[in-house]
């Protein structure tokens, strides 16, 4: 395989891997929450996992405990309805874009990645709002007096009633991040192919990138 065809194939491979990662993330948790208390220690700590389309973990136990604290946990999140489609379309779009003519490839990949990014940001924004509600829209009748309104940590650790609550991204979130990075990388590589196949006079590769960046053509990749 020639150096040139390797260069041409690389974005396709990257977009393909990105698509696989995105498809894998459909079945993986995006986000974890771990709740520890004296009677929920070590391996018995309570865990919540949020998948693209559902909750996982000790939801029943949490809802039992909620009788005390009166936590407002919605039965399902609106994200469960559209997040799987977003991820699947992100995968398909990215892969399709990588197969386009080299001239359009970078831009199309960027758009695919941009769609994903916007979706993920919207989902995370919704999640932050939902987490505020968990600790503020509580059932006042079942509330265990003395527990003040709270917002569980989106990332990191805090104390809620008798629980030490820690939140972190799940493998799915990391895969989505990796897939987006790959798509950006593929777009980048495609730019390089298109610039090297139609080099602008008097511009080195380095200055080209700088220039492009400065002109905002890559803005969507950031």
């Amino acid at each position, binding site marked *: 395989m020639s150096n040139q065809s390797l260069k041409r194939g690389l974005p396709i491979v990257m977009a393909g891997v990105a698509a696989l990662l995105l498809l894998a993330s459909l079945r993986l948790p995006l986000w974890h929450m771990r709740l520890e*208390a*004296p*009677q929920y220690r070590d391996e*018995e700590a309570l865990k919540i996992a949020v998948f693209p389309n559902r909750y996982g973990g000790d939801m029943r136990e949490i809802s039992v405990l909620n009788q*005390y604290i009166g936590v407002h946990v919605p039965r399902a999140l609106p994200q469960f309805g559209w997040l799987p489609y977003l991820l699947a379309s992100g995968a398909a779009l990215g892969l399709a874009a990588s197969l386009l003519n080299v001239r359009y490839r970078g831009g199309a990949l960027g758009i695919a990645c941009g769609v994903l990014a916007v979706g993920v940001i919207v989902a995370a924004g919704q999640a932050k709002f939902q987490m505020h509600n968990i600790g503020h829209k509580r059932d006042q*009748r*079942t509330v*265990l*007096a*003395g*527990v003040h309104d709270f917002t569980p940590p989106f990332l990191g650790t805090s104390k809620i*009633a*008798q629980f030490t609550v820690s939140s972190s991204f799940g493998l799915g979130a990391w895969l989505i991040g990796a897939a987006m990075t790959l798509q950006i990388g593929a777009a980048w590589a495609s730019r390089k192919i298109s610039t090297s196949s139609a080099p602008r006079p008097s511009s080195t590769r380095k200055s080209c990138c700088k220039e492009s960046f400065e002109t905002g053509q890559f803005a969507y990749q950031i």
Partner: protein
Amino acid sequence: MTLKSYIVLAALMPLAFTACNSDHTSKKEKAAAQAASAAQQVYVPPGKLDEYYAILSGGQSGGVFVYGIPSCRFIKEIPIFEPRAGLGYANNPGSESYKRLAASGPMWGDTHHPVLSQTEGRYDGKWLWINDKANDRVAKIDLRTFEVAEIKMVPNIQGAHGLAAYLPSCKYVFVNGELETDAAGDSTDAGKYRSLIAFLDAQTLETKFQVSFIGNADIASSGKDGRFVFVTMYNTENAVTSEGMIERDRDAVGAIDVPLAEKALTEGKFSKINGVPVIESEKVPGVLTFIPVPKNPHGCNVTPDGKYVLASGKLSPTVTIIDAKTLKVVAEPEVGLGPLHTTFDGRGNAYTSLFVDSQIVKWNIDKAVAGKGDHILDRVDVHYNVGHTKAAGADTSHPSGDWLISLNKLSKGMFLPVGPGMPESQELVDISGEKMRVVAAFPSLPEPHDAVMIHRKVLENYFVQTYEVPPTATKFGEEKVVRNGNKVDVFMTCIRSKFVPETVEVHEGDQVTVHLTNVETVRDMTHGIAISKVGINLAVDPGQTAETTFTAGKPGTYWYYCTWFCSALHLEMRGRLLVKAAGEPLNEYIGPMAKQNTVAPTAKGNGYE
């Protein structure tokens, strides 16, 4: 980085490891030292006695458990509301214990709150009372023998829960009806429900009077001066759903003015329900005062000096401190999540169990009343979800302030795994110092709710080591078989290593009553009698007599044998019940074998030793 700095770093690495390692080792050493000192505190060598009896209610096991403290050794179970064949308790129709239990209600119970009798503000070691929440009974245990002395059903109430002795006289024990009903009219209309607090004669357990009101009564505690007794009330809503019971922001502690109730009785201000005088609280102002406290309180505990009554918040992170004379709330300090019960050390400190936090919190009562927010002195983790907690002597005016028991609801891996059903868990906490220390954990059958600890010195003078033989008991050498139609009474004795008589002949269908007397004179020489295929086991301690009645089955030989391993000839200690067909001649029991073969026992010994 220069080469030199790499070399310096490399040289320092082992030092850093050593430092980490020695830190790790010193932590380990510290933990080992702590464990060793805790072990020393609870170690009681074989042959030495524990300082305290801890008497734990047995919950749904229907009796109480006796442990030694500080060793946490299990010593005895006293079956009360449930038959226990091994101990020959209430398992044999015809036995006194069976008749007493059956006459009082079902053959099972749910015991919650053990209460010790007091004289002048100290445990006197005479009686232990306990409730049966499931069947509305109260039992009295004689601490001379650690056996049931009386069981009575309490009329008109359901869910006999909180139990306490009326102090200082202990002339009543009073018990709360936690579950509301219409005792007067048997209506199922919840609007007619009332709750009652029953005052029982502490000795006979007859219900002397009751006070009725709308709402419910949970846990009980007595003031120390003979005026008020207190109960927590979590359902002033009089609701019938759990959501309804937590609706109001405030529920109450009820204070009953006992002398005023007694006066109302003499003035005839009561109605009778099922023969029991019932004072309707609305009709006698002052007899029941509702003191508002945060919603759904649980524990109710009067301080040793009698100054305050403390209501533990349960759903509120507070304990409400109420002046026991003026009935005014004086403070409501925060202590932690899920406070259930409070106990005392006699040094002005309170110890509250925190169910949600799984902790015992130590706090100072005077500091809490002063309200500067510096009342919390210490916290210690317990495993897990503590319910009741009780310090030694905490119900008296003179707690000893050395040991505290945490009665936890979940053990969750505290002990060797034995399948999904896990034992209950108790922990022993040393409260003698400034900081609390959990020094031991011990499992039990389900399910201790509350405990009392009494020093062994209090009981030393009361014990009966062997029963005094009543004049009616069968004497050694006077055994006999008495026939009256198809009724056969066998007056049998046992002593190592013989049942007398060794052969009993009856007809098929005869109603046989065995009266077995243990004529041993040395302590701890218990005998039992199991009759093969009849499902009977009796147990008799030295000097004790027990009875059982059964119908003789189909003809044949039925061996009876001793169930308590007693001597080298234990296995030979057996006899035959010979059941013959109707009309077949019987060989009459010809007389005491003892007179023929052996020497009758004297007061100090017997012919078989």
